[in-house]
């Protein structure tokens, strides 16, 4: 089959909607346009039935026993905000301390920063060089004022999967609410909120082949019943936790996407892991001083993150961007002009953070695409190394750390 360009391999930023998802959504824009809260006519009943069915599908994907525990939001960011701020406000009397990690998504970190300005204390647990949080470090961070532990399920840059069940167990023992940002993990790897002891879980549809603009927060109803202060006031939709008319077509799409992910997960996981390993082996087998970021085993099947020493990430992307969509932890590709705080948190030098490239695969990638991207990446890295003064110095045997660099 002929390759189609550009090739999309940036599936941890977003994914394309599965055509089956779009098909399920379409009737809900036109003939089935009712408001799910209209209790007195068939239009409303139809819409409510559709959102309830979607809610059940999302619930099943994460192992929630009661579909009512799923609260729809506008996406992952809103779900994370609601979880953190909602708990902070509701349980303020009980304590003011939150435990989280240094590698959470910006939505988690920035919400914590705001809560700190409002008088909460936050402990940012570091990660080990492989990106894993040591559960003992989480345990040590807990105080008698801790009301919430928030640890991401799988990282958006390096794909590292945390030991969520162990942290859930710890939270239960201490009687502390446990939230996990599972935006990157839901639909990709098995999740069970019951056996893993998760009280709150954030996710989003657009990372699992659903539409943009809808997400969900799982809120445990039993053992313990978690209560949240709402962030949005209004008609009291979503059990009072998230007012606002439900975007029925998006929710229907989310439900269908969840259903497809559940059905196809075992085969898709295996297929993507195989493609990812092929990509990894080809690149690491051909390029010297290329380093895998994150844990080689405990990571998402579709994630690959490599630092190519002596070349800067954005320049690698520039060499490929007409043909392939990838992402980098380089400062030049971020809005903040800071290199990736995730790679930096692994203890790597910031130079390697500037040099990191993330490949993230999706349902529709093929082996031909993987081979092509591997080959072109190798070519571009080699070309850039030929014009890299750092590579030249290193090859001459100069220790780059011995040079007194004049930083701007």
């Amino acid at each position, binding site marked *: 089959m002929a390759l189609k360009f550009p090739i999309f391999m940036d599936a941890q930023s977003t994914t394309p909607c599965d055509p089956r998802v779009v098909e399920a959504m379409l009737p809900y824009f036109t003939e089935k346009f009712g408001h799910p809260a209209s209790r007195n006519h068939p239009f409303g009943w139809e819409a409510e039935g559709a959102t309830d069915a979607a809610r059940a599908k999302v619930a099943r994907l994460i192992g929630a026993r009661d579909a009512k525990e799923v609260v729809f939001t506008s996406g992952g960011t809103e779900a994370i905000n609601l979880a953190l701020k909602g708990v902070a406000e509701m349980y303020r009397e009980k304590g003011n301390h939150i435990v989280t990690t240094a590698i959470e998504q910006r939505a988690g970190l920035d919400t914590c920063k705001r809560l700190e300005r409002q008088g909460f204390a936050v402990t940012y647990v570091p990660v080990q060089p492989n990106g894993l949080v040591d559960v003992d470090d989480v345990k040590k961070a807990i105080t008698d004022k801790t009301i919430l532990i928030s640890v991401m399920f799988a990282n958006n840059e390096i794909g590292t999967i945390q030991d969520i069940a162990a942290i859930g167990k710890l939270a239960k023992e201490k009687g502390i609410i446990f939230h996990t940002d599972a935006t990157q993990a839901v639909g990709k790897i098995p999740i069970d909120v019951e056996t893993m002891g998760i009280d709150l879980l954030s996710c989003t549809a657009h990372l699992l082949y659903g539409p943009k603009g809808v997400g969900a927060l799982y809120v445990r109803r039993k053992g313990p019943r978690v209560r949240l202060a709402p962030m949005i006031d209004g008609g009291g939709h979503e059990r009072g936790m998230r007012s606002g008319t439900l975007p029925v077509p998006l929710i229907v799409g989310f439900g269908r996407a969840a259903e497809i992910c559940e059905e196809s997960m075992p085969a898709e996981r295996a297929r993507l892991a195989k493609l990812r390993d092929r990509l990894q082996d080809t690149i690491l087998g051909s390029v010297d001083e290329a380093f895998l970021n994150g844990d080689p085993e405990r990571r998402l099947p579709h994630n690959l993150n490599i630092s190519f020493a002596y070349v*800067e990430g954005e*320049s690698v992307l520039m060499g490929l961007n007409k043909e392939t969509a990838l992402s980098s932890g380089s400062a*030049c590709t971020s809005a903040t002009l800071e290199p990736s705080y995730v790679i930096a948190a692994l203890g790597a*030098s*910031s*130079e390697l953070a500037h040099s990191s490239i993330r490949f993230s695969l999706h349902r529709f990638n093929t082996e031909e695409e993987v081979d092509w991207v591997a080959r072109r990446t190798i070519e571009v890295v080699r070309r850039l190394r030929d014009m890299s003064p750092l590579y030249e110095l290193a090859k001459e045997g100069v220790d780059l750390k011995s040079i007194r*660099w004049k*930083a*701007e």
Partner: protein
Amino acid sequence: MAYSEKVVDHYNNPRNVGSFPKDTLGVGTGLVGAPECGDVMKLQIKVNVQTGVIEDAKFKTFGCGSAIASSSLATEWLKGKTVDEAAKIKNTDIVSELKLPPVKIHCSVLAEDAIKAALADCKEKWLKAGAPAASTT
């Protein structure tokens, strides 16, 4: 962010990539930036010791596309200029030629620093060697 055509052109066809032996008389080397900042430029000039004219220039850059383009352009501009003329190249000239957006201005600053460092290195070696300082004032 989309790149300007000139940046893309310099990135795809960088001018004067390479190195001169840095101990040769007349060769000046500027190494500026820092790996942890994500930008390092090495810019070299080869000056005719009789005339003070830059006969050749080469660069190697670790950095984004705009950094590569800024240093590539600098080597193009340096060739044929006297050392005095070269000292007058400003980062703003590079910004306007390459149409660099505000977040990339530091790339042009680095290129100007690299030119200055190369000129200074050349002059220092020249004086050390006891050669007449041709045309430099």
